[in-house]
């Protein structure tokens, strides 16, 4: 544009120069004079641009006013279109705001794309880990990272204060924050010397703890706090929005103080979570290659039978954080985009209907001199205006939907609490609104005679709503299976009280034994079945390798058996949990005094170890350390891997009277015939009578189990909601087209009736049309469903993505909705009065 203007000015100057020369000026002077006579080309440009802009704005304003006048003239059309778009855009915005922090928004660290989590990945844990001794080796020899750092698995500590509190305490390497690129908000970071065992202890407080416990005192630095009876100096405060890279909770950050000697000892079990910042230009793939030799070398330190099950993992911090919800997030985004597409198809349909009705108006305006370009512009303005209005109302819809999501399932999706409608989300909404407008705005360009494109749109809507319904019924059926599956234990009327003893107060074995003895005595007074355990389903405890197990008189077991979980329990465990003992017997109180500890195997473990042989009475060494014991019984499998995974092998060990093996953390279980809620204060009272500063969490087992179905329920609810929206829109769309066709064919219907067609014939004629398009849509929808639902296999529990029942339900619902939507117009057609129809 600017070049063209410049060309024109140049051409003027040349011609003026020629002219001036013809008047007798020498060439140079002629050119100079021409420039003088022309004046400033820059100002000319600006003036020309101003002309173009003001004309553009004028036209825009005219188009906008005209569009708004048009909307006011047909309020039903406008309101339907805006409401449809508001649902589509609103739902899309709500889902985007929920998945944006997971999938797209950068993590809250500078240069976050270069942060990775790495380590060994084996059957012991769901995330990669490192062993301190090997980590030390890697740290000096690796070439992939600018810096690497570690933390001990998150733990708890007890804060001594007027009201004692249990806190989330994380011990880290001194360069932890530096590697993440974070500096304390107040005070200083850790110094490398503070990682030495015995160095003076310092701590960084989380922003929340600083506020709640210390009243946000700016002079807090140098003060001390007492954690686990140790005096610790406060070195600083973490920033307000600080997040641990593994997304764990944190109240206090401490320098880890494990000794290198202990780490390098042969049987060291110092586990670490390890993170690294990649060197500039090194990709994750390259980092994995560079770490491979170190990994291979470290693998030599792993027992040979475990080696095949251990691999090296290097993955982005984002993948480490969202690996469980990645698929769910993309699926929800896909589902809501399908809904948006459906909404656009619906509005396109409305626009086409209106275009037919307005054919006269447009023809008149064309005759009055409006160019084709001008008419296209007008249509486009109307579309974008509809999109923007829909988007604006959609923001309100999105905000309400987001509230619904959060209230319905706060734990439904990771970081759901961070979801909000902010500027970034609003920009997304704006883009979606305009894109939708272009999408449905193009519809009139595709229309052919006999409303072919409208029929195609209806079929597409039917197909999409069928797809959404299939998804909804798959997720609903999967959730139902998840919730009604046999757990192997009975959560009803079961209450669990969990606590962790304070390290300092119960340091000696005697103190622990005494505490548990008194606890058992006191809790036995509460009516019902009672037991103590160190952990409870549906989670397991950290296990031991299957290959370590020995059976007296049997050859060694196969390697590669994965891990075997175990729990220490008191004799009442099976009765209290409701786990069935299938053969042999349960533990007995008398066995706790002395002697060889008896063992109960889970069915899976018993089958794997003994096949068809009878396990009861066998002598086994389950940890490979020479702790031989007798198998006294086999118990049914109980879920110990969450609800969606099959139960893994595990065994039960009787907690002996003098045992300290329960450790500092324990769970007390009560099966009661009475109201479980009534038990809670009683349990609390008994424990408080022994140690009033001990925090206890008492929950009904049903609540605990429910927590495991939060995400599937969230997914099923959302997709169900979208399916209902989608079905409604598709039905409205079908109804609209049918009603339009009936109106258009009133004369034809009148003629048919005049020559003898019955009202039944006419209704059948209209319904046949509806049947053809919905049939096509259903067929396309089924094809799409069969090919797309495979992608969400990972989100389904014990149900095939091609589950025939789900497909049948979805197709049935669509068919019923379509029949209803077609019924009203077809009956209106049947009531056409031939005389009236033919006279008009």
């Amino acid at each position: 544009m600017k070049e063209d203007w410049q060309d024109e000015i140049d051409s003027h100057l040349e011609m003026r120069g020629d002219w001036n020369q013809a008047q007798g000026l020498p060439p140079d002077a002629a050119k100079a004079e021409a420039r003088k006579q022309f004046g400033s080309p820059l100002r000319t440009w600006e003036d020309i641009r101003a002309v173009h802009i003001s004309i553009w704005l004028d036209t825009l304003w005219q188009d906008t006013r005209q569009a708004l006048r048009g909307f006011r003239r047909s309020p039903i059309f406008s309101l339907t279109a805006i409401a449809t778009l508001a649902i589509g855009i609103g739902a899309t915005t709500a889902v985007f705001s929920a998945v944006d922090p997971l999938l797209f928004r950068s993590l809250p660290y500078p240069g976050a794309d270069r942060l990775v989590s790495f380590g060994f990945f084996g059957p012991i844990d769901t995330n990669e880990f490192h062993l301190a001794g090997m980590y030390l080796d890697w740290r000096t020899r690796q070439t992939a990272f600018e810096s690497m750092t570690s933390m001990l698995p998150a733990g708890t500590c007890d804060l001594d204060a007027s009201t004692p509190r249990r806190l989330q305490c994380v011990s880290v390497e001194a360069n932890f924050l530096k590697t993440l690129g974070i500096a304390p908000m107040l005070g200083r970071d850790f110094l490398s010397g503070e990682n030495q065992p015995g160095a003076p202890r310092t701590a960084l407080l989380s922003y929340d703890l600083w506020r709640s416990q210390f009243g946000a005192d700016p002079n807090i630095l140098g003060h001390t706090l007492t954690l686990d009876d140790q005096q610790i100096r406060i070195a600083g405060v973490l920033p307000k929005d600080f997040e641990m890279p593994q997304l764990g909770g944190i109240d206090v950050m401490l320098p880890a103080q494990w000794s290198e000697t202990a780490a390098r000892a042969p049987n060291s079990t110092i586990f670490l979570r390890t993170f690294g910042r990649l060197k500039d230009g090194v990709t994750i793939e390259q980092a994995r290659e560079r770490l491979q030799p170190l990994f291979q070398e470290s693998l030599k330190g792993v027992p040979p039978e475990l080696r095949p099950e251990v691999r090296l993992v290097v993955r982005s911090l984002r993948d480490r954080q969202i690996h469980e919800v990645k698929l769910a997030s993309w699926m929800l985004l896909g589902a809501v985009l399908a809904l948006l597409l459906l909404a656009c198809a619906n509005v396109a349909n409305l626009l086409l209907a209106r275009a037919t009705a307005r054919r006269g108006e447009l023809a008149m305006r064309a005759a009055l001199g409006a160019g084709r370009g001008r008419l296209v512009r007008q249509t486009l303005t109307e579309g974008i205006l509809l999109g923007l209005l829909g988007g604006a109302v959609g923001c309100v819809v999105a905000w309400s939907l987001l509230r619904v999501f959060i209230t319905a399932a706060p734990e439904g999706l990771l970081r759901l609490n961070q979801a909000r409608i902010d500027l970034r989300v609003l920009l997304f909404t704006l883009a979606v609104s305009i894109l939708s407008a272009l999408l449905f705005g193009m519809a009139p360009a595709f229309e052919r005679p006999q409303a072919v494109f409208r029929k195609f749109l209806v079929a597409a809507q039917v197909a999409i709503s069928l797809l959404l319904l299939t998804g909804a019924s798959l997720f609903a059926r999967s959730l139902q299976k998840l919730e009604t599956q046999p757990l192997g234990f009975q959560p009803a009327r079961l209450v669990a009280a969990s606590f962790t003893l304070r390290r300092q107060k119960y340091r000696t074995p005697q103190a622990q034994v005494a505490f548990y003895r008194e606890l058992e005595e006191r809790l036995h007074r509460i009516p019902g079945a009672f037991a103590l355990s160190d952990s409870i389903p549906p989670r397991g405890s950290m296990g031991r390798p299957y290959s370590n197990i020995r059976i007296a008189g049997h050859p060694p077991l196969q390697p590669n058996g994965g891990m075997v979980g175990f729990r220490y329990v008191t004799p009442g465990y099976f009765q209290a949990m409701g786990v069935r003992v299938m053969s042999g017997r349960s533990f007995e109180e008398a066995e706790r005094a002395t002697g060889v500890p008896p063992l109960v195997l889970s069915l899976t473990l018993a089958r794997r170890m003994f096949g068809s042989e009878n396990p009861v009475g066998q002598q086994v060494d389950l940890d490979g350390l020479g702790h031989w014991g007798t198998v006294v019984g086999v118990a049914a499998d109980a879920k110990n891997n969450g609800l969606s995974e099959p139960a893994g092998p595990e065994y039960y060990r009787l907690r002996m009277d003098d045992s300290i093996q329960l450790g500092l953390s324990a769970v007390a279980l009560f099966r009661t015939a009475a109201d479980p809620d009534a038990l809670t204060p009683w349990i609390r009272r008994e424990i408080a009578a022994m140690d009033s500063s001990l925090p206890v969490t008492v929950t009904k087992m049903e609540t605990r189990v429910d927590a495991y179905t939060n995400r599937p329920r969230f997914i099923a609810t959302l997709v169900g909601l979208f399916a209902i929206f989608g079905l409604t829109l598709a039905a409205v769309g079908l109804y609209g087209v049918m009603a339009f066709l009936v109106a258009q064919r009133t004369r034809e219907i009148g003629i048919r009736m005049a020559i003898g067609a019955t009202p039944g014939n006419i209704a059948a004629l209209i319904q046949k049309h509806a049947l053809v398009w919905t049939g096509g849509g259903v067929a396309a929808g089924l094809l799409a469903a069969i090919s797309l639902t495979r992608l969400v296999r990972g989100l389904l529990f014990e149900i095939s993505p091609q589950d025939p029942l789900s497909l049948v339900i979805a197709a049935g619902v669509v068919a019923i909705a379509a029949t209803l939507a077609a019924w009203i117009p077809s009956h209106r057609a049947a009531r056409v009065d031939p005389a009236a129809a033919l006279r008009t």
Partner: protein
Amino acid sequence: MKQDHLQGTLELVILKTLSAAPNHGFGITLHVQQASTGLLGVEEGSLYPALHRLEKQRLIQGEWKKTENARRARIYTLTAAGRQRLTEAETNWATLSKGLQKLLRFA
């Protein structure tokens, strides 16, 4: 005279010039300068915004062509709408000046 009146007059003069024959910006400049001293102001560049406005309103249409002097130039032609606008304006102007003449005669 106020600037927009002047502008309106300039546009009218452009239309009138083009009604005789299609012409380029420089040709129009010469014609306007001869026909009405001072209307364009001192700077010849001020003709172009007016040309662009007229073109946007589809009263004239420009096209790149070669002149008889073998220079490339954008030649403007009056469109049907432009011709109509000119006729209207001339009628209005005639009515107005007739009214003025009467007024002046009786004043």
